[in-house]
């Protein structure tokens, strides 16, 4: 009887847990088959998530980057929102092209930022990929095991890059390197797959624990 009193949603905290449990069970019901409970909670989830996104939009973007500069006297910021609202012309057949001006600005800026990203992110990665494989004066502490690992690292990197060479027909040594690259890709994909599966399993374990521990109070 005491367990039942604790279990039932008789307090605000228990009510919250019951709501969470009902949401979880309703979404898991899809594992049996498509049903109205799943559909309802799926729509609720989309609505809530879309609604929630408006808070950060207003508080963290419009207030911080538009309203505050305006109040500090930067009057030209007043044009940012109406310019962004040109995007909404996308639904108009007659004025739809105006939205492409805004899209053009966003795409152009993204392209410009990508040049920066390419140089600042990928160029150092290329440099860092070529690790020492022979002990010299510059890397006296290099162990044989590290040197072998570094050699394997470079071989894998180059063979996978060779696999992606589609500009000409792969023949002879290039083809053999590409085959090795394909096997290395399989290893990488297997590792990524294993990691992803375990991450999802951790989430599933978390959900089962929530149902058994928080809701049913069984463990």
């Amino acid at each position, binding site marked *: 009887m005491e367990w039942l009193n604790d279990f039932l949603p008789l307090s605000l905290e228990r009510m919250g847990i019951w709501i969470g449990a009902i949401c979880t069970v309703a979404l898991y019901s899809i594992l049996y088959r498509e049903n109205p409970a799943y559909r309802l909670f799926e729509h609720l989830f989309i609505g809530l998530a879309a609604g929630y996104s408006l808070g950060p939009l207003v508080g963290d973007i419009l207030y911080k980057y538009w309203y505050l500069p305006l109040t500090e006297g930067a009057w030209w910021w007043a044009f940012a929102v109406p310019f962004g609202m040109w995007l909404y012309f996308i639904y108009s057949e007659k004025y739809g092209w105006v939205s492409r001006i805004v899209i053009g600005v966003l795409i152009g800026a993204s392209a410009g930022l990508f040049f920066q990203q390419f140089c600042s992110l990928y160029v150092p990665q290329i440099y860092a990929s070529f690790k020492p494989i022979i002990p010299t004066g510059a890397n006296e502490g290099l162990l044989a095991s590290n040197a072998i690992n570094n050699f394997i690292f470079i071989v894998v990197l180059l063979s996978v890059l060779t696999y992606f060479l589609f500009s000409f027909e792969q023949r002879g040594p290039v083809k053999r390197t590409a085959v090795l690259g394909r096997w290395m890709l399989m290893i990488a994909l297997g590792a990524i797959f294993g990691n992803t599966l375990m991450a999802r399993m951790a989430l599933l374990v978390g*959900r089962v624990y929530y149902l058994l521990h928080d809701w049913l109070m069984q463990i």
Partner: protein
Amino acid sequence: MQLALDMSRDGATWMMAAIVVLAFLGMFGLVFLLQMLSTQGRRAIVVAVTFIAGLIFALEFFLPAQPVDGQDKNFLSDPTLQIQNFLQVVAGMALGLGTYGLLRLHLRNVVQKRAQWGYSASLLISLVVMGFLSIWHSLGEKNVEGQPLVATNETAEYIFSVLFNNMIVQMDAAMFSLIAFYIFSAAYRAFRIRSIEATILMATAMIVMIGIVPLGKAISEGIGLPAELPPEYAKEPFSLTAILYSLKLPTMADWILKTLNAPATRAIEFGVAVGGLATAIRLWLSMDRGLGV
């Protein structure tokens, strides 16, 4: 004195409101002017703004910089920061566009009473309620001169907390954990050994999956592999103890992730980066037909 301050504040607020209204009127008036342009003129404008937007960021990065206040800057560094903030606002409007699209679709379902319009109604109600509470909550967290920007309400905060913590967070975790079941089914198909590639994929995934959880350590130590590598063997990788330690599932999983997975993933990233660079140049120079008007 206070009255004068309040009046000057009121005056500034009215002035700001007038500027915002004028900006809206001006920008929407500009649309009607732009509408008078020919198709070639419209295309030229889209191409020009795309090019200029990209050029500013490219120039800012490639032009030589001088140390100013401990940072390397050139004459475009500060303006690009302002432009990035401006683009945040514009991109924020794009987020609103997505919400507007969702509202439009589901409102139409409800108004026209299409099949299963009740689900659309539930989506709209949850969107409107959560949107209102989320904006209220977000503005309530902002402080102006020590006071919250918007007065908060305890009941509203409680409802927001229930909707966020007990619904969104729980359903988000449930949705992502659902994928585990589908991944299992995909794994069954992917792991059927039909070729050398499938065998490599399966073996690697198995080692990684078992190696990164406590089961891998338990199995390895259960068959007698050393639990730890004594420090004196750390510099002797070819000693029997070090070799046996390397055969432990957690060590193998770690080695696969760092020595085989990392370079292969990096090679994929390099390919994506070069492809992205080519696409960025095409978009920047409006060589794709997508921006045509």
